[in-house]
C-alpha cells in the first residue's frame, strides 16, 4: 500500500470536484479498494471518504420506482421491505454475494464498481492488460475456468463478478451520478459497464471524478423473481454462472446473467425467447460466446441453470 492522504467530503459536489484531481479515489465500504491497494493493484494518492454525505437512504420516486442511495449497505438493501416485496430478485442477488460481514460494509455504488476476480489480475508479476495495459493477458491461455465467455476480447476475458449488478441489469436500473463540474446525469445500467475491447482497463462510463449518488429502479415489474447462483461451494464464492429472472404471468419473462459476461449480461433475444422455454433462452443468450477450453462448460451450465429455473417455476 502506498502512502495516501484522506479526507471526508463535505458535499457531493465537493467530493466530485476533488476526485477529478490526479490520483484521487472515492472510498465507500473499502472492501474491494483496500484489498487492491494492499496489493498495489490500485495506487491512489488521495482517498475521499463519501460515507457521510447522506447517500444512505432508500426512497420511493415520483414515477413509482425506488431510489437507492449509493452508500446503502448491501445488507440493508437486501433487507429493505420494499425491495423484498417489489424487487425480490435484487434482494436475493445481494444475499447470494460475499459474506454477511462483507455485505455489512459493501455499498451499492462500490458493488457496481468492484473489479474482476481474474487470478492473473491479482498477481502483479503476471501479464494483465486490465491491470497494466499492453502487458498481455495471462488468463486466455492460462487458468480461465472462472472467466467470461461473452463480451470478451482478445485483450481480456475477465468476468464481471457482481451479483447485485446482474439484478440491477435485469430491473433496468439507472445509475445517477454527479460530475466534477457539479452536473448530474443518469446512465442506464445497460450502458454503465463497458466491454473490454482494446481497453480492458476502462470498465465503466463514469468520467474522472464522477460520483455515483444513487441507483434508481423503475416501477416494479411484478411476476416471480428468482436469482440462482451456481458456484463451487455452497456459499461465499463467486458465481460460475448466475441467472436473475423475472417470470411474468403472461409468459413474458426477462433474464440477466452473471459469471459468464465481461459485464452483467442481458440480451433482448433471450428475453424474447422466453415463451419457447429454457433451451431457446440459453441459445439466444449465449449467441456469440467465445469460450476457452476451460470455461466452455459455462455454456451447458447456463442452459442447465435456466432449465432448473423453468422447472421450479412450474412447481
Amino acid at each position: 500500500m502506498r502512502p495516501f492522504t484522506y479526507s471526508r467530503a463535505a458535499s457531493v459536489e465537493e467530493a466530485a470536484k476533488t476526485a477529478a484531481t490526479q490520483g484521487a479515489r472515492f472510498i465507500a465500504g473499502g472492501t474491494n479498494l483496500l484489498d487492491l491497494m494492499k496489493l498495489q493493484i490500485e495506487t491512489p494518492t488521495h482517498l475521499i471518504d463519501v460515507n457521510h454525505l447522506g447517500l444512505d437512504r432508500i426512497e420511493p420516486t415520483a414515477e413509482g420506482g425506488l431510489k437507492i442511495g449509493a452508500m446503502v449497505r448491501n445488507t440493508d438493501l437486501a433487507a429493505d421491505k420494499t425491495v423484498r416485496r417489489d424487487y425480490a430478485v435484487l434482494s436475493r442477488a445481494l444475499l447470494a454475494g460475499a459474506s454477511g460481514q462483507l455485505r455489512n460494509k459493501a455499498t451499492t455504488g462500490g458493488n457496481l464498481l468492484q473489479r474482476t476476480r481474474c487470478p492473473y489480475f491479482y498477481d502483479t508479476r503476471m501479464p494483465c492488460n486490465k491491470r497494466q495495459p499492453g502487458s498481455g493477458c495471462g488468463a486466455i491461455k492460462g487458468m480461465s475456468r472462472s472467466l467470461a465467455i461473452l463480451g470478451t476480447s482478445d485483450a481480456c476475458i475477465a468476468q464481471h463478478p457482481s451479483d447485485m449488478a446482474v439484478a440491477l441489469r435485469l430491473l433496468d436500473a439507472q445509475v445517477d451520478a454527479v460530475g466534477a463540474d457539479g452536473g448530474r446525469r443518469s446512465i442506464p445500467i445497460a450502458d454503465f459497464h463497458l466491454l473490454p475491447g482494446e481497453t480492458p482497463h476502462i470498465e465503466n462510463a463514469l468520467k474522472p471524478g464522477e460520483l455515483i449518488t444513487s441507483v434508481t429502479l423503475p416501477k416494479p415489474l411484478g411476476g416471480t423473481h428468482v436469482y440462482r447462483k451456481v458456484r463451487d461451494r455452497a456459499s461465499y464464492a463467486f458465481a460460475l454462472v448466475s441467472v436473475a429472472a423475472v417470470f411474468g404471468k403472461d409468459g413474458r419473462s426477462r433474464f440477466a446473467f452473471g459469471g459468464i459476461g465481461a459485464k452483467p449480461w442481458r440480451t433482448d433475444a433471450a428475453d424474447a425467447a422466453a415463451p419457447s422455454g429454457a433451451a431457446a433462452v440459453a441459445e439466444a443468450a449465449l449467441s456469440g460466446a467465445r469460450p476457452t477450453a476451460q470455461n466452455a462448460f459455462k455454456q451447458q451450465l447456463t442452459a442447465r441453470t435456466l432449465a432448473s429455473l423453468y422447472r421450479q417455476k412450474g412447481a
Partner: protein
Amino acid sequence: MKFDTPATTNPIDRGRVIGIPHDRIDGPAKVTGTAPYAYERHDAAPNAAYGWIVGSAIAKGRIGAIDLRAAEAAPGVLGIVTHQNAGPLGKGNFNTAHLLGGPQIEHYEQAVALVIADTLENARDAARLVRIDYAPEQGRFDLAAERDKGVPPPPGFGGPADTKTGDFEAGFAKAAVKIDQSYTTPDQSHAMMEPHATTAAWNGDKLTLWTSNQMIAWSVGEMAKTLKIPPENIRLVSPYIGGGFGAKLWVRADALLAALGSRMIGRPVKVAIARPQIPNNTVHRPATIQRIRIGADKQGVIDAIAHEVWSGDLPGGGAETAAQQTRLLYRGPNRLTTHRLSTLDLPEGNAMRAPGEAVGLLALEVAMDELAEACGVDPVELRIRNDVQYDPEAGPQRPFSSRKLIECLREGAERFGWNRRNPKPGQVRDGRWLVGMGVASAFRNNLVGKSGARIGVDAEGHVIVETDMTDIGTGSYTIIAQTAAEMMGVPLEAVTVRLGDSRFPVSAGSGGQWGANSSTAGVYAAAMALRAKLAEKAGFPADKALFEDGLIRLGNQSQPLATLAGREGLWAEDSMEFGDLDKRYAQATFGAHFCEVGVDIDTAEVRVRRMGGAFAAGRILNPKSARSQVIGAMTMGVGAALMEELSVDTRFGFFVNHDMAEYLVPVHADIPQQDVLFIDELDDKSSPMKAKGVGELGICGAGAAVANAIYNATGVRLRDYPLTIDKILAAQRVA
C-alpha cells in the same frame, strides 16, 4: 522408560479423568486473546520491526542483479536481507528448496529478500521497490508430461518405494472380476488459519524464535544447520499454533528471515508469510496420478491388488506415498505397490494431513466401490469380506495390534441407515436433488516416537508438566493435563501444562497423528518416575501405593502430595522410548465413512446432506477433542472431494489461485450434520496409554465416501479430483 512389551493394567485404566470428554483447558486464553501467538509477542520482544518477504517472480533460473537503492531509500526502511548479504547459509535436512533463494531460483515465490521497516505498511511498500533482474530458465511443471520419467524415490516415512508379494500379474490375469482404473488428485494447500509467522531476537550469539511450529526439536536442529550456529544457541518457543496440518513441521522462510533480519538490524524482527504468498512460497500436498488394479473372484474376494503412484517434486524432494494403505488394508496373496517420483520445478511438495493415505484412499476406496458394483456385492459387505487381521504383505506372523475395521463398518452402517441405500445408481429423487449414499474405509498408520516430559508437584499439591510437545489446535494441552491428573490422582484443575519450548524435554511433536499417544506416553513415563520419588519419600512401596484425591495412600495410611513435595517441590523427568512392538505388530487406526449427497438434476451442484463415521483408534483420551479432530478431518475430506485444487499454470510454473478467495475450502454451508462414533478399543501394543492417533484418521477415506455417494446418486463415476460441476456435466454428457 522403555515400552517393549504389551501394556498391562496401569493407573491410566482407572479412567477417572482420561477418556472423559473435557473442554480444552487452553480455550479461555484463546477466546480472551491472552494466548500469545508467534506474531504477537509484544510481551517477550517489544519494539519488533516488521519484515516483508519479496518472492521470486520466476519459477526457475537465476538472479542477474539486485538493485536495492529505491527500497533502501523508502520511508522507515531499516535493512534488506538478500542472499548477497545474508552470509553463508546451510540447508536443513527437511527443506528441499532453500528458504532464501538466490542467485539460483528454485521455485516461484521463493523468498529472495526481506525488507525490514518500522511498520508493516512501510515494509510491504518498500518491498515493491526492490528491483531484481532474472534470467529465467525452462522448468518442468506438468506432472502428466513428466510422469514417465519418474524414478523410485528414496525410502522415507512411507517405507520403501515398491513392495511385491506373490505374483500380481499372474493373479490378476486369471481373476474372474477385474478393475483397472486411473485416478488423479491435485496439488492442495494446507490453508491453516494462522499463517507461518515468527518473531526473532538475538542476545549476543543467542537466538530466540517465537514461531508457529509443530516440531520444536527438529526445528532447532534445522535452524542451527541453516544458520550454521550451535543448536544450544537457539531457543524456539511455540506455545500456541493456529493450525498446521503439516505445513509447520519444518522451519520456513519466516523463521530464517526473521533471524537474519534481526541480526542485521540488531533489534527484534517479526515476519509473517502473507496469505497470497503461502501456496507458492511454502509447501503443499503434491498432486498424484494413481493406477489401481484389483483382481477378485465373483464374490469380490481379492486375489490380486496393485497400486501404482506417480508424483513430482523439486530435485532432492520426496514422493507422495499414496499406495501406503494398499499394503495393509485388504487381503489378497498377490500384491504390488510402486511409487515413482518425477522432477518438477513447482514449489516444494511435502506432508499435509495424512500424507499418503489421504489421497491414496481417494483412489483405492473408489476402486473398491467399482469392484463392489462389478461383483454385485454391497460395498460394506465387500470390505468385510476382504478384511485381514494381519499384515497381508508379511503374513500371519505379523498380526495387527488391534483392528476393528469390521466393527466400524457394521456399526457405522447401522447408525447411518445404510440399508436404506438403493444399490442401483440414479434412482432416488428428492425434489430437484438426486440422492445417493457412499461408503469408504478409513485407514491411517499408527506411528509412535520417543517423547519426554518433566513433571513436578509443588507445595500446594499443584502438578506442573513441561514438554516441548505442541498443541496445533488439536487439544494437546488438555490430554496431557488429563494424563497427569490421572497419574497423580489430582483433579484436572490442579494441573498446569507448559508446551512448545525448546527448554523443555524433547517430545514426539505434532505430526503424522503420532503426537497424542506418544506425548501422553512420555508424560506417563515422567509421572511414573515422580510417583516413585513420592512413594519413596512417604516410605511406601511404589508399586502398591495409590495416588488419589491429592494423596498418596497405602491401606489406611496416607500423606498429601503437597506435604511430600515441600517448599522446593518435587520433580521428575523421563521419556518413553518405543521398542519393536510396531515392527512385530502392524499398528494402524481404522474407520468407516458414510455419506449421503444430493446432486442437482440440472446444474450438477453437489451438496453433502449427511456424514457419519465409526472409528477405532485405541483409547480415546478426550472424546470431545477427538470428535473435533475427526469432524474437522471429515470436512477436509469434503474439500478434497469437491473443491480443493491448486491450479498449475504450466507456462509460468506456479499455483495460480494462491489466495483464499480462489483456493476454495468448505464453508459452514457445505457441511451438514456429522456423526462420529468411537468403537471401544484398547491397544495394549501401542503404548501404556493404549491409545492411537486420531487426528488424521478422519480425512482418510472421507472424500472417497463423497465420490461414491455421487456415483450412487447419478450413475456418473468420476476419477479426477476435485469432483466439480464441470466434470460432472462432462461425464453426464458422455453417459
